[in-house]
């Protein structure tokens, strides 16, 4: 008989790991958007940039200043160091760390130290002229910090139930963030779908790909000729690229399947919902999606993703006592 004792995971712990991972993914995503924006800004007129900034705010679910005027300094501040904006980088890193702090005995000490170090670094940053000029250092540090955390997690934590919640959080967040970004982009820019984009908008499309860490991977697949239809196909439906919607949904499904097996719970609902979403993406054709409108499609993806999220919450984190006693 095996000497390994039955391993249990508190619902609260699972909840914390899940949200820790979501917040860190969100911080990384925002840092990448800002990093890309910073590069694009150098090649663009201020007017062209302002349009993208409004899209950025929309995609990050942050509200634009009341007077509707937006400049690089304000935008950067809102999305990075503004503690009153819950989706700013600083707020997300702090929330991730706070969640991990509550369950730090569940992760390896290397993981905690890495996230704590990232937090201390981000939290000691003060905005100002000098910082703004060198803010790319900050954005890189956040992305690298998040990558390092993922690597440390994968190599120092048992790939058991807790690790699966971390995976789950990361890819639920990624699915949602990618869908939102692609949705706003296709709503605002109306290029002819199957022709190479014109030079003035070329930068915006490079920006979209880079915001998904996908520019190089896209070029390998389709060459540097950017066609909106191909960009959409790559970001939505590519099964092997880690920042595509389909890949993320596959990972959500895999994590939920593993959790269902580990907990021996009849958790059909979350797995079924993730499975349906997975099937949606596996069997979609890009020209059909674009004919009906990319935005409608990604809204459906986001809606299904939210359903899966709610179902995870009800089955694993916050179930009624009566149902648990009966089983």
């Amino acid at each position, binding site marked *: 008989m095996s000497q390994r*004792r*039955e391993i*249990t*995971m*508190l*619902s*609260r712990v*699972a909840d914390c790991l899940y949200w820790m991972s979501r917040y860190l993914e969100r911080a990384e995503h925002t840092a990448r958007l800002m990093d890309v924006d910073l590069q694009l800004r150098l090649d663009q007129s201020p007017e062209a940039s302002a349009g993208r900034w409004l899209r950025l705010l929309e995609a990050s679910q942050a509200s634009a200043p009341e007077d509707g005027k937006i400049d690089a300094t304000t935008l950067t501040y809102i999305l990075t160091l503004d503690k009153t904006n819950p989706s700013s980088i600083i707020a997300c890193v702090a929330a991730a760390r*706070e969640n991990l*702090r*509550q*369950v*730090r*005995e569940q992760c390896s*000490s290397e993981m*905690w*130290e890495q996230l*704590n*170090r990232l937090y*201390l670094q981000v939290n000691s940053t003060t905005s100002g002229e000098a910082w703004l000029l060198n803010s790319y250092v900050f954005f890189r540090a956040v992305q690298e910090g998040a990558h390092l955390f993922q690597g440390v997690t994968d190599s120092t934590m048992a790939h058991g*139930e807790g690790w699966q919640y971390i995976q789950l959080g990361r890819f639920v967040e990624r699915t949602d963030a990618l869908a939102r970004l692609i949705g706003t982009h296709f709503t605002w820019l109306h290029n002819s779908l199957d022709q190479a984009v014109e030079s003035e908008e070329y930068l915006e499309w490079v920006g979209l790909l880079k915001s998904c860490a996908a520019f190089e991977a896209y070029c390998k697949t389709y060459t540097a000729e950017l066609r909106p239809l191909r960009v959409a196909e790559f970001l939505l439906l590519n099964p092997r690229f880690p920042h595509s919607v389909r890949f993320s949904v596959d990972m959500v499904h895999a994590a939920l399947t593993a*959790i269902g097996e*580990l*907990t*021996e*719970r009849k958790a059909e609902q979350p797995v079924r919902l993730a499975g349906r979403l997975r099937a949606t993406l596996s069997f979609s054709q890009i020209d059909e999606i674009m004919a009906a409108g990319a935005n409608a499609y990604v809204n459906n993806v986001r809606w299904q993703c939210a359903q899966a999220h709610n179902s995870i919450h009800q089955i*694993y*984190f916050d*179930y009624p*006592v009566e149902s*648990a*006693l009966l*089983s």
Partner: protein
Amino acid sequence: MPESPRSMFRPPFRSYQFDGAYDEMFAAPGEPRPHYRALFQTLLELPPEQLRKTQQAADLSFLHQGITFTVYGNEEGTERVFPNDLLPRIIPHHEWSKIEGGLTQRIAALNLFLEDVYHRGRILADGVVPRELVYSCRHFRREMRGLTVPRGIYVSVCGTDLVRLPDGNFAVLEDNLRVPSGVSYMLANRKVLKRVFPTLFRDYGVCPVDHYAQALLATLRALSPPNASGWHEPTVVLLTPGVFNSAYFEHTFLAQQMGIELVEGRDLLVHDNVVYMRTTAGLRRVDVIYRRVDDDFLDPLTFRRDSSLGVPGLFNAYRAGNVALANAIGTGIADDKAVYAYVPAIIRYYLGEDPILANVDTYLLHDRSQREYVLEHLQELVVKAVGESGGYGMLIGPHSTAEQREEFRRRIQEEPRNYIAQPTLNLSRAPCFLEGEAQARHVDLRPYILYGENVTLVPGGLTRVALRRGSLVVNSSQGGGSKDTWVLRA
């Protein structure tokens, strides 16, 4: 080779000071005690710069590991690193043997006292401890009357504060029988010191402390109640008030080291007088709770109603014998600072032995003549609130202002039962590495005692340091730090 007295004043000891206090390192200026000689020699040879760098690295490592505590009533930056000093405090084996014997005796007697007070009350009937002193104690729990706890053990985890007096003898300053903390710092300090002085550590022959978590787990398992879930190993959990508690780091650390779940009140629920924890795979029964939540907050149905940290119905499950708590509820009467004065009598009463470790003289303020003496001599004495710990609610006469003394005079006259007074003790001093050199600072010693199947002391403990020059208060909440404690092998 004997050290010449002059070498005393070589760096890093250039500004090392002596006064009436017992010095842990030096028998006389420039003359280290035999068990400190090797450390003394190492410090003379080690470039201070190197030690300073090591100190910085250690501080940074504590910060990155998040070895912090929370300061109450301080708005900004609630988390603070608990300062660690690099120079070990060394205790020779024979001194430790005496401490071990004394503390074993003490915990045995205090457990018998608690068992007696909550059952027949013989010691009260015999007039050894005044009845009104026990019943007027804020930590007396009426609900515990007649309740039988597993193995009759009320206090299974204890941290006793010892001080060394100018005559070189250790004395007990206070017992912490409710939820003593600090043991994680003992373990963290040891980890750092092994890295800083590997050779010195090995050559000294220091008793290990790393098995503390395992000993604690064995102690907790030994408490498993008769009605436990049965055939499998008892399920032990650590109940924490949560992330905002000052000792949260320690709770996570101990849970991780023992491999048990760290739970908050909201993770537990009681159904049919059985305690369960809410897991992703459904509810799971809990047998033993190492609780780091105070009595008052444990169960809103029995104790404080406004508590959101506790578990409704927990007390009934405890009463039904379905779950064990460590420590038991109501142990605070035995570490009440007024009951403390009776501990030597308690030891004689139950064990028929003389106390191995002395108490510190204590004035009981509900006694009129003692109170009058104290009120006249406030400037020389230390006044403590009986139910407080952590250095809160204290007046240190020699370092107080006239205003503070007036305030305490008023409080004592209002509630004499609530205060005791003790002479201002000249705590022993040990070298600490501060501002790039060795300086003498006052220290105490808190060993940790476990009581399950039998009494276990991990050789060592937490040596707390009053880091401010001249200060006598070693509590972490009051600007104290800590250092590793080396108990030498026989």
